[in-house]
Each structure stands twice: as structure tokens, then as C-alpha cells.
């Protein structure tokens, strides 16, 4: 895949715009369903950035697990736990102002740190997307232990969540 030098910025800013727009939307909206919907924008935009970062498999996983699974779960949770669609909540002015200040300061600090470091490139930027086979081999060899632990984790979580969500008979 030849992501061209001049096309890459355009696509990056497009996706970054989507991500930031929806993330700001999440913060500003007072309707929780809309917040969940904005989260779809963020997840989709991040998936797009993964494609740009040569992580095709990860992008697909992000879409299928995050956007298709976790997000549906969250929306489902919203619907089950709110009495009306108008689940609104308004933080007070002072709270909002304080939080925004903290957020801005935090971002300024992080931005200064991140841009202050000379990120020397240790290896060539990967020009080829990581193939499914590469990721699969790594998962089943070097990362076999986390892989197996994750399976136990999912089993336990499934049992726990199913128990908690089940109606008491």
C-alpha cells in the first residue's frame, strides 16, 4: 500500500479531525446516548488512523471488537439503565470551568513533554503493513502467555458478568 507523502497529511488530519470532533462532542453533550454515538466517531477515526499507521489487522479488530461489540454493549447498557431518552445531566458552571482549566493545563503539559523529546527513530518507519501472519505468529509464540491468560480472563469475566446481569430467580 503506497500511502503517498502528500496524501498522508490530508488523511491524517481528516481522521484526527473526526477523532477530536467526536471526543469534544462526548465532553460537551449532555445526552448520554449521543455521547455513546460520538464514541463511535472516535473509535472509527482511530481505526482509520490505524490503517494509516500500517496496522490493518488492528484496525479491523478495533472495528469489529470495539465498535461492533463494546460499543453495542455500552449503548445497550444506556438503554437498559435510563428511564427516558432524556438522560441529561448538567455539571455546574464552576465545575465545568475548573475541569476545563485542568484539562487545558494537562494538555499543555503533555504537549510540551511530547514535543520536547527528540524521538530519534530507532528503526526505519515500517513501510509495509504488519501482516496477519506476523501478528498471529507473535501472538502464538512470544506472546503465548498473555494470550492464554486473556482466555482465562474472558472466561472468568463472562461468568461474572452473566451472573450479575442475570435476573434473580
Amino acid at each position: 500500500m503506497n500511502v503517498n507523502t502528500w496524501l498522508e497529511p490530508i488523511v491524517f488530519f481528516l481522521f484526527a479531525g473526526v477523532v477530536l470532533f467526536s471526543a469534544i462532542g462526548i465532553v460537551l453533550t449532555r445526552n448520554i446516548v449521543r455521547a455513546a454515538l460520538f464514541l463511535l466517531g472516535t473509535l472509527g477515526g482511530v481505526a482509520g488512523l490505524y490503517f494509516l499507521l500500517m496496522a490493518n489487522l488492528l484496525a479491523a479488530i478495533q472495528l469489529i471488537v470495539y465498535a461492533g461489540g463494546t460499543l453495542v454493549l455500552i449503548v445497550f447498557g444506556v438503554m437498559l439503565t435510563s428511564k427516558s431518552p432524556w438522560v441529561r445531566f448538567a455539571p455546574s458552571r464552576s465545575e465545568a470551568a475548573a475541569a476545563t482549566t485542568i484539562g487545558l493545563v494537562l494538555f499543555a503539559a503533555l504537549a510540551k513533554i511530547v514535543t520536547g523529546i527528540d524521538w530519534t527513530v530507532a528503526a526505519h518507519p515500517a513501510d509495509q503493513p504488519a501482516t496477519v501472519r506476523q501478528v498471529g505468529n507473535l501472538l502464538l509464540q512470544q506472546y503465548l502467555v498473555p494470550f492464554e491468560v486473556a482466555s482465562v480472563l474472558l472466561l472468568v469475566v463472562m461468568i461474572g458478568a452473566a451472573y450479575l446481569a442475570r435476573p434473580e430467580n
Partner: protein
Amino acid sequence: MLLAIANSFWMPDLDAVVAIGPLWGLAGTIVAIVLAALVLGRSAAVSSVITIIGATLTAWICFTHAPRVAQSAWAGLAPAGGSPMLLVDNFAILFILLICLFLACVTGLWMIGASTNARESAAHLRNGPEFFVLLVGSAFGMALMVSTTNLLMIILAIEMASLPSYAIVGFQKRNRIAAEASLKYVLFGAVTSALMAYGISLLYGFYGTLDVNEIGRLVSTELAATDTPAAAKALISVALFGLMAGIGFKISAVPFHFWCPDVFEGASIEVTTWLSVASKAAGLGLLLRIIAAVLQPLAETFDNPLSTTVAMFAAVTCTVGNLAAFPQTSVKRLLAYSSIAHAGYMLMAGAIIWQAKPGSDVANPAFAALIVYIIVYLFMNLGAFGCTALVYWATGSEKIEAFRGLGRRSPLIAAAMTVCLFSLVGLPPFGGFIAKFYLLMALFKSNLVWLVAVALLNSIFSLYFYSRIAYAMYFADDGKPAFSVPAFGRALVIAAAIVILLTGIPIAGGLIGRANQFASHLYPIAARTTFAEPQAAAAKDPIPLAARSAP
């Protein structure tokens, strides 16, 4: 024949698979509970028995492993050409042993609760298999926490320990307080784990590796070479703050402690007992591993600000825990704050940055002291919570008023409770004293005198609220009738009290000796990180891993 098939694929080294035996024990217990529930039907009795058997079996595996591991250079699982994922050395084995022992004790406590027909245990009885799968699942996570130095495994292990814990806190579904406790727990846990993920991503990016030992080496070479720019230092601080948020959440160190009292009060008492000890022990084990890997190499090269930071955290945690315990009327909540305070004491050990001379067999005194402390703390808390549980099941209340006249109504329980309480304060004839003594000695040796003063002052504070319970038991009789408790329960708390008495003086010397031995296994980690490459897979590995170089 099957071997021939196996050879055609990449398989992990058989020795390495055996080396992580204790973890197999716990994972196998989970599977056994699920299978038993599927085959034999959902029976709480069967799953609790399987849990006890599994915990005992795992403890036995630990015992058999310990001498073998002591001989080999290191034991664990380091996959093809990569950093070690699991590091089951004697340090890990000790912690897994403690966790398994405690798991068996908590299961015993659960059985007693179930036999007393308390209202809250009904849900536990009906849904026994789920409860024990979650309990053993969190134990598995804690075992993983103490046996890894890989950032990915750290986050996985913490989640493995946390996610089932959230569920067992809210296990009684009709109980509003339990629901609220689990809500707070899960929200707090999710936030801290997210912070940790962000911190880990920065660490990975900055050092280009996921292995904490490797990071430690890079840190020391980097510091030896030049001054790091301010931005890099800030980045590392942010990253470490994220990482510490995750670990601090598990040990309820102060800025991350808000969940602790609420969760301990809302959860049923077995769960509280479990979380108060096991989760903290595992968190401290992980913290020690990270400190050993990252900070030890720095001990002599520069005056470590991180040591001061950890010391400040420890002092604040300790003081906040003790001060907040003052006005409490619920014993459960009081013990929750006490556990925060004790986390503070134990965190003090993390402030001791100490470097052994190469080749010497002397262990880090901090680690030895901490190991002793955790062992004693386990029994103190088991005893204290066990007594509270027995009183709660008998009287239906966990307020201090319920303890009034306990000295008359149930003298044995009162005696055991007294032993545990004074041991928690750290008074001389009990194990708590020995533990605190070694800790303070270690602090003193490392020139952290102010921390010693803080610890002593705190112990004096804590005497007040612990003795409030003792006072209620012996001097504030309100004439309620005596009650009897299940024999097994009595045996459990008395056994805990006896262990505390034993560790007090009689076997203290032996204990610190063993602890030194274990600690020395943790220590020379830099020497052991030069692993022999696992030969089987290195050749077959089709992926040329790009050479990583230090920034």
C-alpha cells in the same frame, strides 16, 4: 507419535511449562470448578471443596518447586527471542504460596458463613460455582501479578485480579450497599487501569521495550551517560505515575484509596477479608519487582528522588489511614482504614533503595522486612476479620457496640480478637511487633529516620482506636446473652492468634532467616536477566524482530 506431531509446530519449552506449575494449579482450579458445575450440577459445597483442594494443591506445588527453583538461575517462561513473560522465582513462589493459603482460609470462612444461615450467604450458597470461579480467578490474577516483569503482563495481571474482584464485591444482588460498593470499585478501577495503560504506552515508546528489567538497565546506562533532558524526565514521571496509579489502586495507597473503605464495608465479610490481604500482598509484590528492576541499579549512581517520593506516599498513606480510622463506628470500616494504614507501613519498604555488592549473598533488608510483614499481616487480618465475621453472623451487626461484653459472651473469640488487634498496633509480644521492628530497622539503616518517626507516631495513634474495640469487649458489658460460634470458625481464629503469638518471639529468628533467603532470590535480578535463549524456537521464528536500540 504425538511428539512427532508436536515437533512440527512451535511449542514452548517443556521445562518452562513445568516451571510455571503454581500458575497451572490455580488456572486448573478454575477449570475444575466450571467443569464440576457442568457435570455435577451447581453445588456450592462441591465448588468450595474444589477450591480448597486446588489451593492446597497449588501450595504443595509451590513447596516442591521452591528448592528446584533456588538451584536454577531463573525459572519462568521466556518465549522465543523475547523478554520473559513469567518469572516464577522463589519470590513469586512465596507470594503464590501465601495467596493460596489465604484462599483456603477465606474459603473456610465462607463455609462457616454459609453454615450459619446468615441472610447474605443465601446468594452465595445458591450461586456457589460463580462465586468461587471469580474468587479463584482473582487469586490467579494476583499470582500473575507477583510473577511478571513484563508491562503487558502487568496490566493483564492487574485486570485479571481486578475484574473478578469487582464482581464478587457486588455478589449479593439485592443488597443496595453491595451494589454501590461494586459500582464505586469498578469505576475507580477502570479509571486507574486506563491511566496505567496510558503510562505503559509512554514507557514502551520511550524505552522501546516492554520488559521492566530491560527498562531498568536502559535507565541506568542512560543516567550514567549524560543528563537526561527535562522533557524526558517529565515523560518518565507521567508514565510512572500512570503505572503507579494501577498498582497504588491495588494496594490502596493514598491518592488512590477512596474505593477502599466503601468497598470493604459494602462487600460481604469473606470478600472483604480476601481483598484486604491478598490484593495488597500482590500489589506490593509487583511494586517490589518493579522497584528491584528499575530502581536498584540506580542506588549508588545518584540521589534518588523517587525514593523520597515513595517515602512521602507511604507516610501520607499511613497517616491518612490511621486518622480516618479514628471516628469509625463500624468495625469493618475501621479495619478497612487500618488496612490502608498498613499498606502505608509496607509501602515504606519501597522507599529503601539499596544495592548489594556484586556477588554477595546479602539480601535487601527492605524486602526481607516486607516479606515478614506480609506474612504476619496475613494472619493478623485473617484473625481480626474472622472474629468480626463470627460476631456479625452471631449478632447481625458489625458495629463496635456488637462487641460489647464479648469477653464474657464468647471469651475465646474475644481473646483471639485482642491478640490480633494488639498485633496490628505492633505491641511487643506479638508478630506485629516483630514485623514492624524489622521494617523500622531497615528504614533506620537506610537513613530514613524521619520515616521511622512517622511510623512510630502512627503506631501510637492507632493504639487508640484499636483499643476502643478491646475496651468494648472487656469493659463495656451491656449484658447481652452469650452466643456460641461454629467450632470450625473458632478453630480458624484461634489458629490465627496462635500463629501471631508464635511469630512474635519463638520463631521470629527463623522467619527472618527464611525471608532473607527469599529476598536474596529477588535481588540479583540484573544478573539473572541474561537468559539463555530458549533454543527450540529461536531458529523457527519466522519474524525477524527489528533490532531495538536504546534511545
